[in-house]
């Protein structure tokens, strides 16, 4: 018996004097089940209570009518979902451009030696400026300013400027993520590659970047989540994407339910990506503590 001499953790059996020695994994199972049950019950009670308070508020019928209107939802869900396709396109095109442009910026910023001072300076100024400016401002200036110049041959499609603005804004952040990755690869890796006679570019391409990019995938995904949401900002320059569409429907029906539909769409698309990112990060962490790589 563990209780003898006061050794071992006290457990229930010990208190009533008929304990089994030690604590087997099996004896923990009922308590795990119990805590799951407790969590479930308390969650249901909490949210049930909250819902009951809201639904019984004096003005609930009016709020329900203008925010949770089933009829308006049915009428606007389809055009809103269709408008979301524009956001998806914006996201996908911008993402590809961001991943490539940001990589170029990051590589330019990590070029060593005095010869590359102008290049490094230019890249640094770009990153500083676009991280400092509010995104909406960049979208406004590019989306209205450049077409406003009316230069022949310059595109007028707001979608073009939407992609351009998002690419410029997000590349500044993403290039910093890449750069942190590049700097996290120990200089001895470059020395080993160069000692084999690989050029600086070959060492970067085959040895440094593959390791750097692997390490920054989770933070990159975090930036993707931000981009996914920020695609609504381009509604300001007249791209009819999901947020613009819900504004249109809101004024058409004098009802806010379209915004609810929009919110639902983002929840459905963003939460899985966020969860996946968290999973990747925790997996990487447990790998690092095991001392593994890959």
């Amino acid at each position: 018996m563990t209780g003898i001499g006061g050794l071992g953790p006290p457990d229930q059996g010990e208190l009533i004097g008929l304990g089994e020695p030690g604590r087997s994994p099996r004896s923990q199972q009922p308590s795990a089940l119990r805590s799951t049950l407790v969590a479930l019950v308390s969650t249901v009670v909490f949210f049930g209570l909250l819902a009951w308070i809201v639904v019984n508020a004096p003005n609930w019928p009016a709020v329900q009518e203008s925010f949770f209107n089933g009829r308006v939802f049915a009428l606007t869900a389809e055009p809103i979902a269709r408008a979301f396709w524009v956001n998806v396109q914006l996201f996908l095109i911008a993402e590809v451009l961001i991943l490539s442009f940001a990589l170029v910026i990051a590589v330019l910023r990590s070029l060593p030696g005095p010869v590359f001072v102008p290049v490094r300076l230019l890249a640094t100024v770009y990153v500083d400026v676009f991280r400092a400016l509010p995104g909406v401002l960049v979208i406004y200036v590019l989306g209205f300013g450049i077409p406003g110049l009316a230069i022949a041959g310059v595109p007028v499609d707001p979608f073009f400027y939407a992609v351009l603005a998002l690419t410029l804004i997000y590349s500044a952040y993403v290039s910093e993520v890449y750069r942190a990755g590049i700097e996290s690869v120990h200089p001895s890796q470059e020395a080993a590659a160069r000692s084999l006679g690989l050029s600086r570019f070959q060492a970067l391409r085959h040895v440094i970047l593959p390791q750097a990019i692997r390490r920054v995938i989770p933070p990159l995904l975090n930036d993707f989540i931000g981009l996914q949401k920020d695609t609504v900002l381009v509604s300001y320059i007249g791209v009819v994407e999901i947020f613009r569409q819900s504004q249109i429907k809101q004024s058409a029906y004098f009802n806010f339910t379209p915004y609810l539909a929009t919110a639902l769409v983002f929840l459905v698309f963003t939460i899985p990506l966020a969860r996946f990112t968290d999973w990747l990060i925790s997996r990487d962490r447990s790998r690092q503590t095991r001392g593994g790589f890959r």
Partner: protein
Amino acid sequence: MSAATAGIDRSLPGAHRGSGGGPAIVIEGLYKSFGKLEVLRGIDLVLHQHEVVCLIGASGSGKSTLLRCVNLLEPIDAGRILVEGEEITAPKIDVNRIRRRIGIVFQAFNLFPHMSVLDNVTLGPRKALRRPRAQAEADATALLERFGLADKRRDYPDRLSGGQQQRVAIVRALAMSPDLLLLDEVTSALDPELIAEVLEVIRELAGAGMTMLIATHEMGFARDIANRVCFLDAGRILEEGTPAEIFGAPREERTRRFLQRIVEAGRL
């Protein structure tokens, strides 16, 4: 028991190509500082073809820096380095071309962790020598086989023991068919029971006639394998001679004190 050169076997693949009778390396008046810290203060050293020279000296005496200078991983401040008559420290030299001829193996292995053993070994031949992948892989497999690593070629470095990793690093350098090999304390990061397998590989290379410049703390090994031993002290070669001379009858007081400390540490 010195000089493994008697009756060397130069027929093994990967051994020295040889080119005339001139020295393999000539180092003249080499100076190197890091900021205010003068690390190398006038190094003069000649290595002949097929010669094995061991660099010994206290930690911080400049052994690694000297090897890195020979591989052009560090720019030098003054002096010249010639490899087979060509001045590799001349301005405007193609450093990549020079490095392909000079293999270096580091204390910490520095294998590429994101590549399999085979890819580690073939990267240089494929990218720097532009060999086709099939040929590079066939050559690499043969080399891995020769050093008992063939069954590891699909593994990633983190699956290997330290001794195996260091042998892979040696094979990676050999895959470039270098004219000479620089070894920087290649056993210092290894558990004692893994040291022998790595030293065995180096012995085999010496037997095959590979020209080597070896920084080492393994005095017994240096005594066995070296044609010459150089004692590096504060950035200068203070004393140089055959293993018998250096280990048996050192002329300099500082050499004697260094060896005394090594003996006390139980490493000789």
